[in-house]
């Protein structure tokens, strides 16, 4: 089937920053994204888990954007502004999409 080159950006970020990140993405012209839950993890700031969580500070989410390759740079710059001072991971990978007219 006919597929089209695209970039998949995945940003793991603290839940408290989610709305700020998606607002910035929208401002940068991103037309769609998906939020995936994260159960736990480990990094330089230690280990954490969502189990029985009683504080709203701890959780993380993963924001995934599939975009046209030419839109990558503005997106990364926008995202960077939000993640800069915060913990989290930003990865970019190549992919192909069906129905490219949707992006």
């Amino acid at each position: 089937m006919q597929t089209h080159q695209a970039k998949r950006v995945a940003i793991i970020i603290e839940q408290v920053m989610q709305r700020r990140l998606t607002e910035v993405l929208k401002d940068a012209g991103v037309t769609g994204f998906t939020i995936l839950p994260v159960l736990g993890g480990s990094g330089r700031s230690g280990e954490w888990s969502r189990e029985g969580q009683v504080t709203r500070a701890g959780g993380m989410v993963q924001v995934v954007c599939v975009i046209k390759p030419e839109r990558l740079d503005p997106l990364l710059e926008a995202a960077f502004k939000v993640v800069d001072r915060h913990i989290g991971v930003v990865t970019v990978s190549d992919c192909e999409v069906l129905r490219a007219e949707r992006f």
Partner: protein
Amino acid sequence: MDQILSMAATNLLSPIILSFALGVAASLARSDLNIPEAVAKGMSIYLLFAIGFKGGVSVAAHGIDLTLGLSLLAGIVLSAALPLIAFGLLKVMSGLSRLDAAAVAAHYGSISIVTFVAATSVLQSSGISYEGYMVAVAAAMEAPAILSALWLISRGGANRRMDPELMREILLNGSIVLLVGSFLIGGITGQEGFDRISSFIEAPFQGVLCLFLLDMGLVAGRGLREGSGVLKPGVLTFGGIMPLVGSVVGLLAGLLLGLSTGGVALFMVLSASASYIAVPAAMRVALPEANPSIYLTLSLGVTFPFNLTLGIPLYIALASALTGG
């Protein structure tokens, strides 16, 4: 003294404290016992709704008076002032950075609603009454401490954003809205509303509190296991001293306001307790460089158990002695 000890003993052997202890023990023993996040949130919604509603019903019965307004004001002032005291203490006692100290201080100005709930349940079983609007005071004390802490940091020269969005998030965070909202609902529907849902908000309350404290114990235990390395002796000591300092300030406020024995005790509890909901979330947004292991472990792993086990009976005993209640 005897009374304090006996009340402390009764308190320590109550189902809610033992449930908390079970959680801590299970977690330290690395059992896989755990309560799903959704269930923990559901229980906290239930507790906030029930405690707010009961407070409102009680205000509907006793009417609004000047002391209510003054108590709210006092709560706001205390919440804003306590971080300054905490910050000063931390500068003297601990080697924490300015940033970490301010973040910790914010927690101690704000309040822990579960500590408040546990205290009301001890009061109730001791037959000591209190002003129903204290739950509104609790809500009023959640946020000001955050602003104080951010002011402390900005005074230090750092350029800290206090965007209006963050302000809105702090003032409209879920637990404040639910507490104030259910307080208003209770106030509006009064005794009649209470009769309709009392078998929901009264009967299972203590039991839900047990399971919720079991979960708090699991989380606190996990925090202690992982965060214990982070807490230097100075910081640890602060976690036990600051509640006492806070409670004395709360005691003075309560006596000045002329509250009942229970009201004074609750003012002490609120001042002595440290936030683990609203403040950590705000700190992650506003001061991401501050180390969450420090403030969370201190608040949940040290001060919360301290208040729950020793603090509450002590504060109640002091309040009883000084109000002649």
